[in-house]
């Protein structure tokens, strides 16, 4: 796996030298061997250092890395049994959203999320993870099933947003997102959402009304993609990096703002460097959080979920002029 992001250039150079030495194999001299060890140490240290100090815009690039694990990768690595459920029973089977019933450590859950697709064929099939109305409705169907059978719902969020095509408008992408937002707060089963890559706008939120929201260390979550925000704010998407900084889109930002519950650490150099290690950390976090959520009586769970959202918002109050209105 190459180091192909711009800020990884120092790592790429170290990696090149390491590979040069490794290619010698058995012919490696003693001092070269020492040098290799030293370079490998340097690479790990530099990786740790660089990845420990990413700017927000760099995190956007990591979150979008083409080798980053996707929903289906995690399902494969985390679940011991899986039955994919397809279709919204109304119009189609949106491959941008995939999921089904799965067994994690012997316990059945519903697990679903955005699938961006890795190669061009899969990307096209999955609409690059941009959900259509059918994807929202398929997810809703699964959530209702989960509720019926007292299975927790786990959603993986990884999208730039909902699909903005003409056909999406025709089939009610707004309505589909809105319906999820109305049903999820009252779903009588625990919901755990994890932003595994990009969380973008309504296309993310429609899968992210949860009891707890976790984010992978380098994941981002935002009201609009940095490009879209820059375009809206300054009529120029070239200012995306600026928008990324201004909008506070990283996991630490959002933890600080109280909008997420937990950050899940990634392997050194990002989730894409080690899918298996990432999946194991993620699995542990899922199990721990689910165990805590399942201890709560249903009415407490629902009340806490409601209050979680009810209390979001930052505003001040100022005295109202006499007679101009009443306060709550």
């Amino acid at each position, binding site marked *: 796996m190459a180091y192909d992001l711009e800020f990884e250039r120092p790592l790429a150079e170290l990696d090149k030298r390491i590979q040069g030495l490794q290619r010698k194999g058995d012919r490696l001299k003693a001092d070269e061997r020492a040098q290799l060890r030293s370079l490998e140490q340097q690479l790990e240290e530099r990786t740790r250092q660089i990845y420990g100090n990413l700017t927000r815009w760099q995190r956007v690039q990591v979150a979008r890395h083409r080798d980053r694990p996707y929903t289906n990768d995690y399902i494969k690595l985390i679940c011991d049994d899986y039955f994919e459920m397809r279709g919204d029973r109304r119009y189609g089977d949106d491959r941008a959203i995939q999921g089904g019933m799965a067994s994690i450590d012997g316990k059945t859950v519903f697990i679903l999320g955005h699938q961006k697709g890795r190669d061009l064929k899969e990307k096209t099939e999955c609409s690059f993870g941009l959900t259509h109305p059918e994807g929202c409705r398929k997810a809703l169907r699964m959530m209702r099933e989960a509720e019926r059978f007292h299975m927790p719902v786990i959603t993986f969020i990884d999208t730039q947003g*909902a699909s*903005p*095509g*003409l056909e*999406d*408008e025709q*089939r*009610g*992408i*707004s*309505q589909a*997102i*809105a*319906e999820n*937002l*109305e*049903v999820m*707060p*009252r779903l009588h089963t625990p919901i755990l959402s994890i932003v595994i890559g990009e969380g973008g*706008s*309504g296309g993310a*939120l*429609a899968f992210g*009304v949860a009891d707890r929201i976790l984010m992978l260390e380098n994941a981002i*979550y*935002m*009201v*609009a993609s940095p490009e*879209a925000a820059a375009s*809206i*704010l*300054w*009529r120029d998407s070239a200012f995306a990096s*600026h*928008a990324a*900084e*201004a*909008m*506070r*889109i990283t996991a630490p930002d*959002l933890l600080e*703002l109280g*909008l997420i519950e937990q950050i899940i650490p990634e392997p050194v150099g990002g989730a894409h460097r080690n899918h298996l290690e990432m999946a194991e950390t993620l699995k542990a976090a899922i199990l721990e959080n689910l165990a805590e959520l399942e201890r709560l009586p249903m009415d407490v769970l629902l009340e806490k979920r*409601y209050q979680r*959202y*009810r209390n*979001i*918002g*930052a*505003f*001040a*109050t*100022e*005295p*109202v002029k006499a007679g*101009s*209105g*009443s*306060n*709550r």
Partner: protein
Amino acid sequence: MKDESQPALPVNSQNGNHPETIPSVAVSARALPDNLAVKCPNCRELLVGKDWEKNNHVCPRCGHHFRLSAEQRIELLLDEGTFEELAADLIPTDPLEFVSRSQSYRAKLEDEQAKSGLKESVVAGTGKIEGLPLALAIMDFRFIGGSMGSVAGEKITRAIEKGLEDHIPVLIVSASGGARMQEGLLSLMQMAKISAALARLSEAGVPYISLLTDPTTGGVMASFASLGDVILAEPGALIGFSGPRVVEQFMHQRLPKDTNTSEFVLAHGMIDAIVHRRMLRATLAKLLRLYHNAGRSAVIG
């Protein structure tokens, strides 16, 4: 349009233009001087200001519905003198300390407040229509394009809670380009917050009427605006998730002329009716009566 004043609002739609008139007057709630004229952006007719006002800001020639301020909307819909404002003391802050390339968010808020005479993009309260009480929230497009930040979200939520407490129907009049970028994810989360409140309202059997006016797009359309027990729209309003510009730009699709209008969403089964502004108050009154006369009196009023 090169500043930060616009939210996620699509432009270039046939309805997205402001009327060509003296700007600060035409979009304000204050009465026009007798001799002023307004040009209809749709049919280019020159309208005498006073006539235009008497006609509820609808072009008598082509039926184009001009945007209304929250104050005008209240005057249009409610029984006179019945409006009582809720949560009037809420004012926006700058929770992200938003670092802008141009005007700071704080400065922008002050500007917009001065220009519009509003503190935020939503006015909430209670009132009556033909004697029947309701809780309501009205978005005002003049304030940063009706964009949703924390205050807008909070005010709408309080209106819903008021409806829930008093068991009276809730009306939300949308006019918004969507979420407000300068409040980042806090802004997106208002959609979840309002929708959760609506879920409680729905469970309690209290009616919610959503009225879509020009424009209703983005996160607003993709949440509470689409959740009405009844959804009404004014004619010719821009209504949709993405603006036509986004669709054409990102999806490389050319759009038929009426895409993302009131007529489009009606044809595609997303709303119940398009109601001319002239009939709006009567239609709302009819709906309130019908809900009021439900069998086991779910609604007290």
